């Protein structure tokens, strides 16, 4: 899912990377300027990144309910499926890396075998899915695994064929050049200390975010938030983000990637969202009901008990 296709790589190298350098970013909007406005947090409230970047609730009342009222929403089917599919992809890629370290380049057949044998476990009953939903999800997990397994194996063979003297560490890095679930401390920007990006490519550097739902414009706020946190922590520019959309059509997996520049506009938007939502929490302001609540909202029954 995280490996770019040839045309996407070309677009990245010939368009996005030079464009990002050419456009530049206002210095005050770089994450390493977290200690001064506008990045400096105004309120003491600590928010999770998904709370800032998620605009599924148009008024932001979900943050108020969760943080001020202490109400936990009921996760919807899409959220449960997304979490399971995220985990399975990370697990498969980590298993591949583990096999490379375990068996070494001299025993590459064992690596391939380990990968070929990798099968996802059925979703646990604790996810609260019905039998039919669990079976559907298991089918999707198998499609995802088979897709990713084939890609990892192909990359492994290609790297081995090109580098006769390669060692395990380099093989793991060239085959799967992403860090999965990279943990980040967002405290500098008034965010949670336990953030985690889906994947990060250090060579570009680019933040990757995986989604299994409809593309929404605010999804880019997620990559923007992680980029700001990365800049605050490591003090190097992170100019690019990529949202990977996975869609299941019958027994096929369709993958679309939205590569984008973490521009001034996205950075401003993220800060505005952070400040607005942190104000709701710090000042205990109820932003009120949204005009068009999605029925799948985890807080739908709380906000509209009769509806």
């Amino acid at each position, binding site marked *: 899912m995280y490996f770019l296709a040839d045309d996407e790589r070309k677009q990245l190298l010939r368009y996005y990377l030079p464009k990002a350098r*050419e*456009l530049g970013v*206002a*210095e005050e909007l770089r994450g390493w300027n977290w200690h001064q*406005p506008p990045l400096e947090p105004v309120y003491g409230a600590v928010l999770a990144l998904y709370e800032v970047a998620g605009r599924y609730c148009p008024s932001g009342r979900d943050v108020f309910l969760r943080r001020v009222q202490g109400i936990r929403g009921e996760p919807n089917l899409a959220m449960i499926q997304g979490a399971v599919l995220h985990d399975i992809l990370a697990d498969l890629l980590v298993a591949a890396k583990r096999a490379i370290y375990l068996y070494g380049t001299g025993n590459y057949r064992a690596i391939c075998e380990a990968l070929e044998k990798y099968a996802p476990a059925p979703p646990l009953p604790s996810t609260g899915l019905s039998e039919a939903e669990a079976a559907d999800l298991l089918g999707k997990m198998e499609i995802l695994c088979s897709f990713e397994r084939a890609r990892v194996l192909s990359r492994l063979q290609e790297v081995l064929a090109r580098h006769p003297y390669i060692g395990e560490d380099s093989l793991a890095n060239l085959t799967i050049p992403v860090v999965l679930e990279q943990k980040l401390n967002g405290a500098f920007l008034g965010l949670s200390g336990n953030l985690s990006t889906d994947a990060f490519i250090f060579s570009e550097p680019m933040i990757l975010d995986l989604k299994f739902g409809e593309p929404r414009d605010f999804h880019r706020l997620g990559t923007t938030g992680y980029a700001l946190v990365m800049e605050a922590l490591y003090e190097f520019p992170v100019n690019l983000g990529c949202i990977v959309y996975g869609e299941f059509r019958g027994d096929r997996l369709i993958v679309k990637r939205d590569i984008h520049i973490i521009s*001034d*506009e996205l950075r*401003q938007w993220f800060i505005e969202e952070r400040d607005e939502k942190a104000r709701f929490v710090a000042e205990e302001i109820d932003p009120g009901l949204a005009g068009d609540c999605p029925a799948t909202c985890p807080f739908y029954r709380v906000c509209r008990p009769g509806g």
Partner: protein
Amino acid sequence: MDPVLKVSDIKQYLYCPRIIYFTYVLPVEKKTTPKMEIGKEEHLKTARLEGRRRLRAYGLTEGERFFNTYLFSPRLGLEGVLDMYLAVPRGSFPVDFKNTCRLAVNHKYQLLAYALLLEDQLGRPVRGGFIYLIPLGRAVYVEATPEARLYTKRLLGAIRGLIGQEQFPSLPRRAGRCADCEYRNYCGDVG
């Protein structure tokens, strides 16, 4: 009916939303600060000199300059007087003179608003513009990306929202800006 906004409102809104409040919701008399006087003088001097200069600062070779052009777009409900625009064979570029050494975010969106206005005026796409940093004698190119255009329009919406709701905005994120603000005396919560 929505008021016709000025391009400078965008700059002011990003500097401090209270300026918009004191301009449209509760109009008050304002004093001209020394900083504003100096800026005005430098502006005039630059415009005078620009007429005789070549276009090297903009990375262009040939083209025509137009000074102090009044621009108005009924579609955007926006008006402003543009310092200068360059018309070259590959397009037109607005130029905003600024008496500063560093490109600030509020200057960027002010220029983009001029780009949108110029586009409406000329009926041709404007791909970007320049901010001329007077002390450095250098022009910085700002591209009108699709995102930047949308954000500029969002800013216009936010300004209209502030005027419509008539709510006194909270203090800006940069309290240091209050030191040389012409509205300082009207903000009771600024020390």
